[in-house]
């Protein structure tokens, strides 16, 4: 008997499916990893151990996990505010870089300073850098109707080249043997360590506070409510007098502020100086974190831990198994694909359709 599987629209989106789908996606990604490792001639169990267990088997490893999760959750929670309002900022990597330039610039200008105010000033300047960089696509979108996806992405290249210009030129350490890098920041410009014997610093509680603020903003404030309406029903939002321009500005600037903060916490934390590249693609990985975390602050925290583990796993697999660390990018993309595929169950359900009985005589 012929049976057909068909998607049928649900009367209402399923909340359960919304939270199960990231788990399904993570599971499916693991299966792909299993197949991939086997295909590369590695024992998949050994590879899994090296990828997912070994990096976090020590206290130092746990510190690294949280350290790398910090910028990811920061950026993702900022992006989520925009994505909920259909404002597609994909240039967080550039806003992060600008935050690093602005914050790092302060640290370099006040190299000798031991003032306790230096670090707060750097953080503020980092946020300002990210905001400024995100304001460009916001202005171009609201004033000239230019697509923010393309402009924010183009600005990533401009920001990266600006950083390269600085560390190759004006900000290069004169005693750095001609390497393209700045001087090391002074002690007062470094974020204090949170957990001794690790590199985990106070940026983590700061990020968690921002995530909590993000939750308050989206869930409890009128402004956040307006943004969600603008995303879910643009026509209704327009009718209710919610300014589309304000939505674009808010969405982009929040994203820029968070990414800028993440940039300065990277240079004032694990890096301690400006380098030609200040991020292993956190700004892009955070897009995946935002989606896997369901654009929800709590989900984003968990998703950032998962993504951080993928980064660590890639490094560990490179050292322990001689596997290329590019595997990380592959896993990140695969995870997002499976998530998007599993999301079909939020709005649709599978129905088995049988041909009507008694239609055709045997």
């Amino acid at each position, binding site marked *: 008997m012929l049976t057909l599987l068909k998607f049928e629209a649900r009367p209402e989106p399923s909340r359960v499916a919304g939270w199960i789908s990231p788990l399904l996606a993570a599971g499916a990604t693991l299966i792909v990893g299993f197949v991939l490792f086997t295909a590369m001639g590695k024992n998949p169990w050994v590879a899994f151990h090296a990828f997912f267990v070994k990096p976090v088997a020590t206290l130092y490893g746990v510190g690294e996990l949280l350290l790398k999760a910090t910028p990811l959750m920061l950026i993702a929670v900022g992006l989520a505010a925009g994505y909920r309002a259909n404002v597609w900022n994909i240039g967080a990597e550039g806003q992060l870089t600008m935050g690093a330039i602005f914050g790092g610039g302060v640290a370099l200008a006040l190299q000798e300073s031991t003032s306790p105010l230096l670090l707060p000033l750097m953080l503020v300047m980092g946020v300002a850098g990210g905001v400024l960089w995100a304001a*460009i696509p916001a202005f171009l979108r609201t004033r000239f109707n*230019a697509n923010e996806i393309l*402009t924010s992405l*183009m600005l990533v290249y401009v920001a990266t080249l600006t950083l390269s210009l600085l560390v190759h030129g004006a900000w290069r350490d004169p005693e750095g043997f001609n390497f393209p890098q700045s001087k090391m920041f002074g002690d007062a410009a470094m974020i204090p360590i949170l957990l001794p014997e690790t590199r985990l610093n106070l940026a983590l509680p700061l990020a968690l506070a921002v995530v909590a603020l993000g939750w308050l903003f989206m869930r409890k404030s009128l402004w956040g409510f307006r943004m969600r309406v603008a995303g879910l029903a643009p026509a209704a939002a327009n009718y209710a007098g919610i300014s589309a321009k304000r939505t674009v500005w808010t969405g982009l600037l929040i994203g820029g502020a968070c990414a800028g903060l993440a940039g300065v916490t990277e240079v004032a934390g694990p890096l301690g100086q400006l380098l030609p590249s200040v991020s292993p693609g956190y700004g892009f990985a955070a*897009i995946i974190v935002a989606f896997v975390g369901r654009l929800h602050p709590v989900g984003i925290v968990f998703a950032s831990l998962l993504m951080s583990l993928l980064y660590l796993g890639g490094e560990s697999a490179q050292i322990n198994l001689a596997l290329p660390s*590019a595997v990380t*990018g592959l896993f990140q993309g695969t995870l997002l694909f499976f998530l998007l*595929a599993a999301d079909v169950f939020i709005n*649709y359900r599978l129905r088995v359709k049988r041909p009507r009985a008694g239609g055709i005589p045997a």
Partner: protein
Amino acid sequence: MDQLAQLFVLTLAAGTPLVFAALGELVTEKSGVLNLGVEGMMLVGAVASFITAAGTGSPWLGVLAGMGAGAALSLIFAVLTLSLMANQVASGLALSLFGVGLSAFLGLDYVSVVITAIQPLAVPGLSTLPFAGKLVFGHNPLVYVSLLLFAAIQWFLYRTRAGLIVRAVGESPQSAHAIGYPVVRIRYLAVMFGGACAGVGGAYLAVAYTPLWVEGMTAGRGWIALALVVFATWRPWRVLAGAYLFGGVTLAQFQAQGLGVDIPSQYLSMLPYVATILVLSMISRDAATIRLNAPASLGKPFHPDG
């Protein structure tokens, strides 16, 4: 004079990857689907072509492999957005991120490998003619292929019944479905055509233009191609013009260095991106033109049962 001809040849060469990628995306978007994964498809096309060219010794087989790889990657996007009704923006971003990761992974062992590249045409007797020889006969064979592709797409979209159907599907999938056209199948084909073109664009970079493999070697050309389709208000000949304009802009970098202008190279490298932002803003300012010319259903999911 000869330098002018040389500049013309170089501009066309620099614009050609954009021509391939943007024309493919144009067809995809004409069917109502916005695929933001062009950068990823170009990169995977580039690495697939390079690996094939290195393995077989034939850069032309490499181009075919790039085409196939681009189409295969776009198929993932098609399944997600057309069969599983996923958000097109998110899926396209996913495709780009995935393509960057996949190409870096596949290309690891090929970073300093040397291949035989596709060489510029050398028609005996003609290519050596002064001025005109270079202007007409001195290009890379793939440049001519891209021009043929342009002509074919122009003809297909505006002079054939099938092209009319593709455009109808992009304007109103509901109506096209009601008349009995297989909207989803047509969109699958349009997406895969776009993927194949992006793959060839990447292949051109890897086996003809550069020719080598470097991680992330497309350097944002996939995104510029997406912007080009908007600049061109979805018209093929304007895509062509825009692609060469941007080809010219990317050249400024090498030209200035050649002329001994003392500007840090980073400023010149920024030019294509800044130019994209400026032109995009100028063209988009006229919101009505964009709205009139963009396929009406662009980016919206379609489910046959409503």
